[in-house]
């Protein structure tokens, strides 16, 4: 019998990832999704490894070199304080991507936990949570965000919190509905028949099965938050303007003078935002195709 383990292990190598592999193949075949993924990865990587890619400090002011157009020295030119735009966009990406990804993650997390509970236990708790989410949904998101910013104050951490508070509802509804459906699935009943603990059934058995739509909606949220961040900068209630974020960089370049004279100051952050959002959306669509068999 000792050889048994190795039988399992050998077989494991052969089969373990076939589901994953199949999905990956499907995804790779989806050209747009791949382009999206590549863009996202490239942008995230460049942001994370910003110090390796540029020797400039994003905040290094060099007033003598202001508004230099792109050249060898400054790949994407400099802004009106002589700061290197390339470096700023890279470092700005760190904050923007962090805020939006964390916001989406936290929102999804909250939505998932509440949604699991509402969907699994049903009854009064469910009704309460659904009402709550409806109320949150009644407020225009932008307004809710602004009010929250007014209450909590500006700042990266607070913005994440705000995105989390305003972004949990879609995930919540989705997870709840899935749970309502999956609660009746046979494998859940099997687990109950074996007397497994409720928490294990909820989180270990059912939850993984609702992850794919959650992941897809989280990607969509990331895209939305990137745009929200930009809008909030525009309204002056986003991340403090001294911190470079894509929104702040673009917002700094919104003046007519910049728009008509220094194209690189708006085209670069604007382009990066649009490309990232586009890429995330493509990526999300691709994921949906792979993860959600209904959509095929």
């Amino acid at each position, binding site marked *: *019998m000792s050889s*048994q*383990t190795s*039988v*399992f292990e*050998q*077989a*494991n190598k*052969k*089969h*373990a990832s*076939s*589901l994953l592999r199949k999905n990956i193949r499907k995804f790779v075949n989806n050209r747009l999704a791949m382009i999206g993924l590549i863009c996202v990865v490239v942008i995230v990587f460049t942001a994370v490894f910003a110090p390796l890619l540029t020797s400039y400090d994003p905040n290094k002011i060099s007033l003598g070199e202001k508004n230099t157009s792109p050249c060898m020295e400054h790949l994407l030119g400099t802004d009106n304080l002589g700061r290197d735009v390339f470096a700023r966009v890279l470092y700005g990406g760190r904050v923007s991507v962090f805020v939006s990804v964390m916001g989406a993650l936290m929102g999804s997390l909250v939505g998932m936990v509440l949604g699991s509970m509402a969907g699994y236990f049903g009854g009064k708790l469910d*009704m309460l949570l659904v009402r709550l989410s409806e109320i949150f949904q009644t407020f225009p998101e932008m307004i809710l965000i602004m009010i929250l910013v007014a209450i909590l104050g500006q700042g990266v951490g607070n913005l994440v919190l705000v995105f989390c508070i305003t972004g949990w509802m879609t995930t919540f509804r989705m997870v709840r509905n899935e749970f309502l459906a999956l609660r009746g*699935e*046979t*494998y859940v*009943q*099997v*687990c*109950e*028949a*074996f*007397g*497994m*603990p409720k928490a294990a059934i909820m989180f270990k*058995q059912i939850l*993984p*099965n609702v992850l794919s739509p959650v992941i897809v909606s989280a990607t969509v949220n990331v895209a939305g938050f990137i745009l929200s961040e930009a809008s909030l900068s525009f309204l002056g209630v986003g991340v403090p303007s001294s911190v470079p974020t894509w929104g702040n960089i673009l917002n700094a370049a919104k003046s007519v003078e910049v728009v008509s004279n220094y194209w690189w100051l708006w085209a670069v952050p604007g382009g990066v935002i649009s490309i990232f959002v586009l890429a995330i959306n493509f990526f999300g669509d691709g994921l949906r195709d792979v993860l959600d068999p209904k959509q095929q």
Partner: protein
Amino acid sequence: MAEKELIFQIKNLQMWFPVRKGFLRKTTGHVKAVDDVSLDVYKGETLGIVGESGCGKSTLGKTIMMLNTPTGGQVLFNYEGQFKDITKFTSQELFQFRKKVQMVFQDPYSALNPLKKIYTAFEEPLKVHGVNSKEEREKIMEDVLKMVNIQPDYLLRYPHEFSGGQRQRLCIARALEVRPEVLICDEPVSALDVSIQAQVLNLMKKIQKDLGLTYLFIAHDLSVVQYMSNRIVVMYLGKIVEIADSRALYDEPLHPYTRALLSAIPVPQIHQEKKRIVLPGEVPSPIRKPAGCALHPRCPHCMEKCKQVDPVLTRYKDGEHMVACHLYGAES
């Protein structure tokens, strides 16, 4: 039929689901899914349960397993000669009880969590039930897999890599892991193709013989039930209308519903002249059960009494055969 040891004694079991309506979710009625069911199950037998969709077969099965908390009645289980009412069990006792009774469900396609390897799906119940060493677990897993003719190394695959028949065999194997005494099979083959169905049915018979299991075999296909069972329970709208030895039920169906059911089944034989009894109308919703005998609006033999008095299950000619119908009321 004598000398049979009882394993389950079900007394007046009742499972009513409240129907809630409106904003305040007031209870406006009940789905009487299982209504006053009394039944004995003997050790080692296969008890078939048939009936139309929605008549409460699955609910009965689940309630016996305490997956639903019954709204009334008792379910007594034989603990080495001692009968204990499982409806009064604490959660710890129930947890232990789950080792004695297991269930196989209708849909093998959704009975395995699509994201978990079969290995994990097999390991989890063992872990929960305290088999802590990995070797021991793998030994058990290998044993049960042998029983259902599946190679152990298949365990490391995902459910989607298996066909329906294989999945159902896996489900049976998994239920057997905890060495249950009773297996409740809720339509285990109705989702399978004919060509596969026979494999699974034969396998189940073999396992029963090998392990001395007791089956509660639920199905809506009378031919399948009859093939599998020693005794058959016929249900209609949450009530038992007839209980009989499977041969007897085929040879001498008493209840008009059973008769209609038997005659409605298409037989894959030609040149067989058959008089079909077609019951008119539909199965009423269990929320609005007709008064009296639930079948009376559709029954060809409906009498005045049937519309008012609900017949009780009584022995027919003092035998094992029981029926709930006023047609036989005088004889009992």
